[in-house]
């Protein structure tokens, strides 16, 4: 019977594939969607210049990538996790529990986070305090902690336009959210002096006060975007009052639709971020599983290629795309060359 033949051959294919799965010859990368464009640019150039196949780069977010990274050692686990934040000690522990002990941390550069609104709308000049007061769930008004009463930006700060508050911020699964909370909302909270009030209200519990600072209002004025920046852009295009949080590279590719806001009087650009003047930026990383070096062909070469001056340097293609080059790139190159792992040792 031909059906029987077909079925047996199908089973045979499955069986063969199960054994063939033992030989993976391309590097597998997953993680942050902020790092994805950079990683794909490097992967493409790597494939062009080396005889190794082009690495596979998946996205999914920093946390998801690190979770997969920590699943264990072996060819069915990923070799590199991209992250738009540093690995947490809880993640290092989770890794260690699964046998992933030697992790090489590679910092590739910095990424700016910008606030942008519709190109035809009002122009904004923000400070972290403005964002904190506009978006925090509770704020201090006349010496008392009250639920956020502000509806328009000029109520928050008389210098801002009288435009309804409508912010699109990255959802909690994004690494960008953490930077936004820490460098904008929390910084604003401290600057505004509200942090002390929360401290007093929480019996000097610093953690609780920080939590109170970064709790965002839930009345619809602040909307979490769990998708990518393209979704934030679509929201702003459909809502003229919207102000979104973007990566610098995304903004630079869409300057015909978006205008960027100053932060504390500094216009975001690769220069102001590199010099440290623009306050909202964060380092980008990728993490390499040392146990896979020498097993997966091209893994170390890919890591070395990524941090080469021609790639990650100030004149390289990554900087051209929007990455702020790391001034300490030479040290990173040494880290990769020596395969120095996290927590010292070799």
């Amino acid at each position, binding site marked *: 019977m031909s059906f029987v033949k*077909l079925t047996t051959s*199908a089973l045979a294919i499955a069986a063969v594939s199960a054994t063939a799965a033992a030989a993976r010859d391309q590097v597998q990368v997953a993680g942050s969607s902020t790092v994805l464009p950079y990683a794909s640019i490097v992967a493409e150039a790597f494939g062009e210049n080396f005889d190794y*196949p082009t690495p596979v780069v998946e996205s999914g977010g920093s946390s998801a990538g690190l979770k997969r990274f920590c699943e264990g050692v072996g060819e069915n686990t990923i070799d590199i996790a991209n992250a738009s934040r540093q690995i947490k000690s809880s993640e290092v522990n989770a890794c260690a529990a699964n046998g992933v002990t030697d992790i090489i941390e590679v910092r590739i550069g910095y990424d700016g986070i910008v606030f942008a609104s519709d190109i035809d709308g009002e122009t904004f000049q923000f400070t972290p305090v403005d964002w904190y007061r506009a978006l925090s769930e509770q704020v201090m008004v006349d010496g008392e902690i009250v639920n956020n009463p502000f509806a328009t930006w000029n109520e928050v700060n008389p210098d801002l336009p009288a435009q309804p508050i409508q912010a699109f911020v990255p959802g909690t699964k994004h690494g960008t959210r953490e930077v936004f909370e820490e460098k904008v909302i929390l910084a604003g909270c401290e600057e505004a002096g509200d942090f002390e009030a929360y401290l007093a209200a929480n019996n000097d519990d610093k953690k609780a006060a920080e939590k109170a600072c970064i709790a965002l209002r839930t009345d619809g004025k602040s909307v979490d975007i769990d998708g990518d920046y393209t979704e934030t852009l679509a929201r702003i295009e459909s809502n003229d009052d919207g102000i979104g949080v973007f990566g610098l590279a995304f903004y630079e590719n869409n300057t015909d639709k978006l205008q960027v806001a100053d932060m504390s009087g500094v216009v975001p650009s690769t220069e102001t971020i590199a010099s440290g003047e623009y306050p909202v930026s964060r380092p980008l990383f990728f993490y390499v599983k040392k146990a896979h070096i020498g097993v997966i062909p091209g893994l170390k070469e890919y890591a070395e290629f990524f941090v080469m001056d021609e790639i990650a340097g100030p004149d390289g293609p990554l900087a051209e795309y929007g990455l702020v080059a790391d001034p300490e790139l030479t040290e990173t190159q040494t880290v990769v060359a020596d395969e120095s792992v996290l927590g010292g040792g070799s």
Partner: protein
Amino acid sequence: MTDTRHMSLLVRDTRTARRNRAETRFRIYGLAAIAIGLTMLVILLVTIVGRGSGAFQQTYLSVPVTLIEAKLDKNGNRDPADLKKVTTFGYGPLLRSAFEQMVDDGTIRTDLPAKKIAGIVSDGAEAQVRDAVLADPSLIGQTVTFEFLASGRVDGYLKGRVSRESIANDKNISAEQLDIVDQLRTAGLLEKRFNLAFITGADASDARPEAAGMGVSMVGSLFMMLVVLVLALPIGVAASIYLEEFAPKNWITDIIEVNISNLAAVPSIVFGILGLAVFINYMHLPNSAPLVGGLVLTLMTLPTIIISTRASLKSVPPSIRDAALGVGASKMQSVFHHVLPLAAPGILTGTIIGLAQALGETAPLLLIGMVGFIASNGPDSLGEGLLSPNSAMPAQIYEWAKRADPAFYERAWGGIIILLVFLITMNAVAVLLRRRFERRW
């Protein structure tokens, strides 16, 4: 109310008039519903074609490049290993001097530095020259005219997506560069033409949207459909034949039947999670492989095939079976010699529609790693095609729609056109098969 004694067939009473009005109204509702549906379809198609047709055209630029021996082959021995050591970065200066040459001979009149002028060609131009040199080292020392892709912004300028106003704040391109583009266009060195690479090519990184194509992800989809066909058709048909023709009717088969119907309604993302847990984490099949994608989609397609196969088996009249059994055929002979051939067109139609459904499915692929920057290596063999990482057409479209550069957005729409062409063709084949071969009793 109406006086029945004076009723005439020629005069409408109020009740008939009301009923007639109700019918007219209902017809209008029906027509309106169809009109709304058609309008939506037209809007959808016009949008898709309007936004996506641009992807089928691409701007090319011809540049004569002098392949200087001192830069490409220092030892002068044309040893392939030595030639490979010159990376794409080593080819950058060649391109820049090619543009300087064009300024010198008056083709381009500009004050821009060569690096800026070179910004109008794709980032992939260096790799293109390098590949040509590696393929034919005898080119070294000569001046060869290359057809480069223009950068995404320049391409957008020719397509009307990018204008001098829209690039006011754009650091990727400047008005001076567009002046050069205009000069080259007048000189006939830069032109927009049909873009075969979009249909056959591989995905490209975020920095070069102009080079991205659907080809490799199409191959990925093809391999997945192959797996689905090879697995789902025999399993589905065998299951349906047994259930329909051989299985006793009792509560166990009832439960199986109900569950097959339920399975058809399970959201596809569930199969994705199942695939991740079983095929990748437990069976250790490779990530991002079309084989795994195909297995997941097989699970999704099976119920569709079983249901349609059973329906077409049911539609074969019992008299056929009785006649076969009456002349002494065994049950199996009656099924395989008579029932199955008569049901085949229905089975095929169901299979094709199931495949078309699977072809357009994205959700389960998200979980098994088929979305990302993947489809860059075309497979060489069947085994590699099944096992080496690849994307699929809908996953590729999803990926492009997420990227920052607006040029990818156009390609996402272009990808939708290709996908729709596939789906329409498959459905047309299904309709044709049914029309041509199906028998009705």
